[in-house]
């Protein structure tokens, strides 16, 4: 039992916007009332929000681990000694598993979604999530460059997803995943054919009879038919290429009428022509999104300083490596996807980096519906999650923002609407939307991101501070599942978080279709492929899909 007494509560999902009231917690949930003798936190003068929810991050699995191995110099610079509560670990842009959990919690985040796991690597991701304490975690399963899936899509024809739908559900069950991710659909497979890519939604994936458009349509239709809590999560084709905003618009048009979430929209909002200097097309994309309530995005803000690019979009990594001339991992996940990792640094004086930074801010400042354009840095691609407080200050503090705008490459700024010194300042209520209420709603996590009765008892309490960066960097209290995890900015305990996985039924008959495809394409036996190890899958919270029409 715990009463968080008399704080200013921001709970936008329930229409609460800074009202002074109590939040009562019992049995891991928010409750209506508690006896007056219940233990209490005196939150007078403090800001109370639901725990943060990160809709798109990279925190677990082989790609993240490869990124760790690539950067011993970061670990040397940021070691964490063991304490009575914390295990030892390392920080940097890609912290070790335990440190990831501690640092997210210390930042007031209690739910994190890893945005890209190849099904073959599900065991690794699950094992690492078990070692990532405190936060509840889920992961999205990569399906956009999968050879058996391509065959099902090709044979399904244009009108129905049919077996594709059953296969999507089968794969989610086989991996313990939460949702479906498409990364440069078709393009990664083309890269694996020999340094090529797709450039439009109608390029055929050589010899496989599918196009990016067909993959997008089939998988988005399947996700909707299954009624998965989270829509298809799309990393569009042509990431980072000048002029790619047309591909992004084409993707949104293709998915019109179907739910879709676009990952790190900033990286897909460039005008200009390929190979030349990009410019901003953020206003056009922000407007388009506003007009389509079935679509949403996270921003993928770039923050100046060190980053590590980790992506299934291996051709993008190859291009980045040409820029850095430094370390690079390029990996092939046999029938499923590719992977690329390149350590990177964003610099204020660099035209492209400053433009990326500015486009991210444009997307935030021009979007009229904060529920559908939510905060991310695509950690650690655009910057570490530790830079969220600074990003929040950029959104909330116009004066600070304008100072920062003056520091960066002005040629880039002139290509954006930031040159007009946008007036908008995010309110605390809007910050609560883009950092918890919005992501939770987009993920379909009904118990997260709000403080209504029955919600999970995940609460963050901030000391009121004029410097919003400082305020959001060091919450006074973080409560997870009703337990006080952080007190006065210090970690008090570090219990395990929950695995969040979807529960979506499938027709068992799909295995008869999949088995021969596996024998053709995989090095792994079909029977050995699904994750079965109880220690990886249990305990877990199952979030049910709402499949309609089929009676399941």
């Amino acid at each position, binding site marked *: 039992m715990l009463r968080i007494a008399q704080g200013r509560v921001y709970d936008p999902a329930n229409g609460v916007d800074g009202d002074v009231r109590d939040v009562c917690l019992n049995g891991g949930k928010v409750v209506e009332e508690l006896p007056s003798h219940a233990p209490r936190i005196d939150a007078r003068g403090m800001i109370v929000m639901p725990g943060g929810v990160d809709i798109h991050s990279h925190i677990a699995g082989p790609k993240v681990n490869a990124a760790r191995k*690539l*950067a*011993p*110099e*970061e670990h*040397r610079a940021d070691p964490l000694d063991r304490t009575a509560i914390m295990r030892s670990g390392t920080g940097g842009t890609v912290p070790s598993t335990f440190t990831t959990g501690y640092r997210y919690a210390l930042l007031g985040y209690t739910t994190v979604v890893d945005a890209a796991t190849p099904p073959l690597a599900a065991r690794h991701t699950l094992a690492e999530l078990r070692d990532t304490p405190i936060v509840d975690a889920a992961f999205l399963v990569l399906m956009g460059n999968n050879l058996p899936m391509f065959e099902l899509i090709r044979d399904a024809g244009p009108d129905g997803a049919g077996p594709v739908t059953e296969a999507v559900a089968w794969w989610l069950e086989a991996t313990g995943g939460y949702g479906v991710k498409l990364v440069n659909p078709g393009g990664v497979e083309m890269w694996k054919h020999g340094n090529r890519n797709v450039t439009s939604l109608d390029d055929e994936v050589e010899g496989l009879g599918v196009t990016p458009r067909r993959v997008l349509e089939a998988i988005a239709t399947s996700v909707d038919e299954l009624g998965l809590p989270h829509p298809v999560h799309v990393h569009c084709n042509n990431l980072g290429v000048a002029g790619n905003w047309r591909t992004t618009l084409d993707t949104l048009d293709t998915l019109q009428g179907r739910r879709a979430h676009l990952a790190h929209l900033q990286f897909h909002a460039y005008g200009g022509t390929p190979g030349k200097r990009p410019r901003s097309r953020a206003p056009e994309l922000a407007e388009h999104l506003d007009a389509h309530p079935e679509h949403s995005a996270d921003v993928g803000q770039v923050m100046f300083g060190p980053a590590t690019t980790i992506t299934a979009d291996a051709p993008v990594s190859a291009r980045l490596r040409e820029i850095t001339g*430094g370390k690079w991992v390029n990996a092939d996940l046999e029938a499923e996807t590719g992977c690329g990792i390149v350590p990177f640094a964003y610099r204020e004086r660099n035209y492209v980096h400053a433009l990326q930074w500015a486009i991210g801010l444009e997307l935030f400042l021009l979007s009229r519906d904060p529920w559908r354009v939510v905060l991310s840095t695509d950690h650690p691609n655009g910057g570490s999650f530790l830079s969220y407080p600074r990003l929040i200050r950029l959104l909330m503090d116009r004066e600070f923002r304008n100072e920062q705008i003056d520091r960066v490459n002005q040629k880039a700024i002139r290509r954006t609407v930031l040159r007009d010194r946008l007036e908008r300042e995010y309110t605390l209520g809007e910050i609560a939307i883009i950092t918890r209420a919005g992501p939770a709603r987009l993920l379909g996590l009904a118990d997260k991101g709000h403080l209504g009765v029955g919600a999970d008892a995940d609460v963050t309490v901030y000391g009121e501070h004029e410097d919003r960066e400082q305020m959001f960097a060091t919450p006074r209290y973080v409560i997870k599942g009703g337990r006080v995890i952080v007190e006065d900015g210090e970690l008090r305990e570090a219990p395990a978080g929950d695995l969040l996985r979807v529960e979506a039924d499938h027709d068992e008959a799909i295995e008869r279709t999949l088995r021969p495809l596996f024998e053709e394409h995989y090095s792994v036996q079909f029977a050995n492929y699904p994750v079965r190890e109880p220690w990886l899958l249990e305990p877990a919270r199952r979030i049910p899909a709402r499949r309609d029409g089929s009676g399941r």
Partner: protein
Amino acid sequence: MPLTLTLREPPTVPLETEGLSPDRLATRRRGEIEALTVWHGNRRAQLADFFAVSGNGGEELRVEGDLRRVKFLGAGMTDGRLTVAGDAGMHTGADMRGGELVVEGDVGDFAGVNMHGGRLVVEGSAGHQLGGAHPGERAGMRGGEILVHGDAGDQVGTGLRRGLIAVAGRVGDAAGLRMLAGTIVALGGLGAPPGAAMRRGTIVAMSHVTLLPTFAFACSYRPPFLRLYLRHLRALGLPLTDDQIEGRYARWCGDGLELRRGEILILEAGR
């Protein structure tokens, strides 16, 4: 008598002594020195658990005993003089910024790694990664001088950015790997293949060297700068002959896979 630390017996697992340098000990009282933290494996210990402290402070520090398992001696030192009477373990003089560190015996791997200034003198031989880079770092040593009177192991001067490494004896394989600038002088033979992926800088050899095919012959000449360098090294006690100082050198440019602004100078016989 200078401040002297005498290791009573060799530790069973490596003893890490980061911070044991003359500049840091100069102003401390005996009791403070004895209470300094050292790490015995993963256990925290006090300096006095392993060392007997004698003599007075000042800018001179002497460490005695079987120090082969003692790491990070003189790491990060900025000033003064540290003498190691005998062999020293890994990371001796790591991140050193100034002063002089003399090892009267051999040093372990990673000696002078990421050095920024000062002088490290090894009267015996050095291990691998002499004057190299910390794991993962692009750049290694950024300044100062390393003189070795014996031999040196592999990957001498990995990522070298500035400074001078001179070895009287033989230098192992892959010297000057990914070198960015600076100078490596090998008087007693140079393993293969030197200068792989070097961008700039100079590697000097006094006898035949097996070069990578990505190095191209440029010319044969008497580099004026080299005479200055070699005389300086002779003054510091390295065994340089007049023929080496005055001789003609073949200049090979590379690495052709990188900038090709680096050079390997090889003394030509009999001229």
